[in-house]
């Protein structure tokens, strides 16, 4: 099906998130505004104004009540999804690169940049899912990354662990309550930053993408690498599709690394891999800059990709996608 092109941002996209129902998607870009869109037809629902710096990240609580965003203006803001009003500004020391609500929405983590003498941290806030409630300004917990700064982080199932991906390519497992470092595993090539970390629907495993041109599916419980997807381009993002056992990877040669940038040479395509067999099964062209973020509808109906080119492309899967099955999978389904 033809993708819907969302032309609401003027700068490169940084993150896209669907609501749990998959009906609305939120996008952030370096142009300081958050956009909300209907995923079905691409109509813009509204924007959220207030940040004073490039927006890096956005997340929605599971009930679609509160929206959290993090930006280069050193703040995390909480918004009323319905009205677009900012209900809370949480001041931090440095730019915020990633925010994520816990599975039940009662906690929010924020990954801060290492800058101006501050080490990279993961800060946790307690959240009340109510637009009128008074939110606490004080962090409930702060994890400091003194080895290599965290680039991405997220909550595992039952908020048991906080998993972080680091600039040196390693992945850490922290205790979700105490913040204690439980494990650190060099999942990706040394010195190749982890660029994205997204969860399986039940949050028992996650996928990481890295500049080392690979993406890996890792178990949250013991950081065991379960699957590896090898590509030929540095990756910026990776996501796990619900309903079908695929993963979608995105990336591309950064503009400074290519001499002549035709879209072909830059490899600006979304790549579909089979999650279990690790085979590439398809590519979707369209962007003319590297893909910075890919998000998938939690209900499995489609996905959206955001590029360095400033566009969001919303795709709805067609029948062929749902019918696609390896022979052995069909066997499995029959038996």
């Amino acid at each position, binding site marked *: 099906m033809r993708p819907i092109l969302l032309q609401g941002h003027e700068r490169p996209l940084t993150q896209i998130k669907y609501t749990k129902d998959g009906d609305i998607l939120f996008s952030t870009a370096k142009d300081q505004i958050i956009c909300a869109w209907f995923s079905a037809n691409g109509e813009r629902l509204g924007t959220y104004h207030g940040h004073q710096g490039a927006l890096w990240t956005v997340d929605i609580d599971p009930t679609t009540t509160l929206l959290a965003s993090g930006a280069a203006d050193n703040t995390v803001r909480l918004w009323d999804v319905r009205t677009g009003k900012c209900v809370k500004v949480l001041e931090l020391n440095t730019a915020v690169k990633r925010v994520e609500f816990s599975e039940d929405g009662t906690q929010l983590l924020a990954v801060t940049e290492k800058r101006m003498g501050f080490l990279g941290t993961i800060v946790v806030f307690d959240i009340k899912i109510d637009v009128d409630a008074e939110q606490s300004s004080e962090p409930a917990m702060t994890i400091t990354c003194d080895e290599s700064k965290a680039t991405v982080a997220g909550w595992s199932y039952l908020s048991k662990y906080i998993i972080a991906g680091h600039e040196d390519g390693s992945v850490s497992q922290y205790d979700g309550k105490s913040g204690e470092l439980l494990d650190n595993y060099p999942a990706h090539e040394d010195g190749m930053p982890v660029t994205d970390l997204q969860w399986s629907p*039940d949050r028992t495993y996650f996928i990481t993408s890295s500049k080392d041109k690979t993406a890996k599916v890792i178990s949250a419980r013991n950081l065991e690498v379960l699957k590896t997807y090898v590509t030929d381009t540095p990756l910026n993002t990776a996501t796990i599709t619900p309903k079908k056992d695929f993963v979608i990877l995105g990336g591309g040669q950064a503009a400074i690394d290519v001499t002549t940038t035709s879209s*072909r040479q830059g490899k600006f395509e979304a790549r579909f891999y089979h999650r279990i067999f690790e085979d590439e099964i398809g590519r979707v062209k369209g962007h003319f800059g590297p893909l910075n973020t890919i998000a998938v509808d939690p209900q499995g109906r489609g996905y959206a990709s955001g590029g360095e080119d400033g566009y969001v492309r919303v795709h709805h899967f067609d029948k062929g996608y749902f019918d696609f099955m390896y022979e*052995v999978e069909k066997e499995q389904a029959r038996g």
Partner: protein
Amino acid sequence: MAPSYNDLPEDNGYDSEEELDYSDLQEQYDVRLEQGLDAFVVIDGLPVVPEDSKQKLVKYLLKKLTTAGKTKEDATFMPTNDQGMTQGYAFVEFKSPEQAIAAAKTFNGTPFDKKHTLAVNKLTDIDRYGREGRVDDEYHAPHIDEFSEKDHLRWWLGDIAGRDQLVMYRGDSVGVFWNKKKDNPENILDRKNWTEFFVQWSPQGTFLTTIHTQGAQLWGGPSWSKTHKFPHPGCNLVDISPSEKYITTWSFKPIEVTEDDPFLTLEEDGKNYIIWDVATEKPLRSFQTHDLASPTVDDATGQPVKKKIPWPAFKWSADDKYVARMLEGQSISIYELPKMNLLDKTTIKIEGIRDFEWAPAVPQRESVKGYEQLLCFWTPEIGSNPAKVGLMNIPAKEIVRTRNLFNVTDAKLHWQSQGAYVCVKVDRHSKSKKSLATNLEIFRVKEKGVPVEVVDSIKDTVINFAWEPKGDRFVLITTTEVVAATAVPPKTAVSFFCPEKIKGAGVGNFKLIRTIEKKNSNAIYWSPKGRFVVVATVHSQQSFDLDFWDLDFEGEKPESDKDLTANLQLMNTADHYGVTDIDWDPTGRYVATSASVWKHTMENGYHLYSLSGELLREEHIEKFKQLLWRPRPPTLLSRDDQKQIRKNLRDYSKDFEEQDRIEEDKEKGAIVEERRRTLSEWLAWRANTEEDLREERREMGLDTEINGVDDKAEDADGEGEQIEELVEEVLDEFEEIVS
């Protein structure tokens, strides 16, 4: 020891202009290290004469010897015995050791008079080889190693499935594979650092050549052992003769041979080319690179012109009997193999010669009974003389046919693979020298009197031309623009030609079939069996077309082509990003296209197409360098056998298809088994994880429904329910009275 004057390097750091003339001093103080013994020769086999005739004999001898070097009577010593008779030998001192060598070379074994034959040797050699004990008095038979069976060098032709081999050079390793069509090529062996520069098959596929700083090596047989080595230090290029009997190696740097070199002799010192006998691994003859006649500095820009060495410089005749090299502008030297002596001891002077080519097959001309080889050459306009194309037969060295041409800027010689035609592509300039156009002068070599047909309907410059192998059709590419090194590829047009249908035997005139305009194509690759041709754009930054054409399409023929011996049809168009090289397999069934890291670093790897342009495989390989099909020797089947096979092709292909199916099933089975295992492992892991998760949820007093897992089956078609809400809002209301 202090260096003698002789040992001082020529260039000792002084400016040549300031250098003083020391030659007189040098002569005075020069130390004769060998005490002059090198200048002596021993002459044996002289007649025995009495004392009084001795004078006469010496005089007669000297008369002969002085043709080789300077000597005089008092430098000759002819001893006599007690009876006053000479003893049949003499010692002669020459002015220099070089002259002594020359004398030994010239006179050794030559007749002195009717009864006497001279044996002339250097004194030092007699000392070296003739001294007691140096040569055993008794004859010992040389030791001959037990016969041990060697690998069969053509083993790969016996493959039960008749598959073809290919070699791939990527990263540091070279691998040889069986072609498996769609499937991963089956690896036969993989060797790291097998070659230092590149690999190359011999013309009939018997050997794989690897190039090293120490020289070239040939490998073959099922064990891929080293069969031959040619220690040419710094060797850059090699060229093996069509029958694989001889090999030429070339190095940019002249060879430096040291005294104790185990392989090369001083004969090879300072040379660039060595022509070797493959079987004995011995050099046959060595040569220096000719200085190129073209200017070293561009007249217009003053920039030095990058010289491109013509390769192969030594061109083999089709039957390996001759090898020839051209000295541009002057002559062709033809050497007879295997002795490598100059044919008739002279070079063939052809003033102004710019290029020549041997007929690629032994020609069978009508009305010519005896043995001959043909070569074609051309000379540009010199003064008021027109440019000329000539056909010469060898060994008679007769000009079989010439043709005069005017306003010639450049010419290229294209032989058809059986030597039936030679097409001379002549780039002609207009009087003002501003525009270029191309004529084709086609020599019908096999017809009586070698008639020449001229195709002058082409208005533009032809940048590429190729004959159909074993056929009589050709493809050419023209461009209106002058080909310059710009980023934008020039617009080109591709034209197909074939002979007209005529009654009776013979071949009709060449006619244009069709021209395809507005292409970027620049390369033509015919199937080795003819009929099919790939026209491609290679080494381009923007365009990567591969057009697969069939010239004998079995479908309906357009009315306009009814008089032509071809039915042209574009079968398929493909696109291989960054393609640099294209190679047909020797059977003409597959086309491999590769993007080599030697040219660029984008998406290196290869594609494999069927002859009709269907993509069978593509593989991206980091640092991919070369893919070469192993050539096959000519078939051993007779013409009738081949006809028979063609007739029963349907039955054969039934068998082959069946075999393919079995093979495919087997491989699929293995893959399916592997997938089954992977899938069940994953499912087991999931089941475990889910169970643990449920357990933990129970402990925490939560419901045990797990997000996003249980609803997997439903809603599989993705058709979600769509609810559209229409909200009507009254903005304003007023009444308007209509009269």
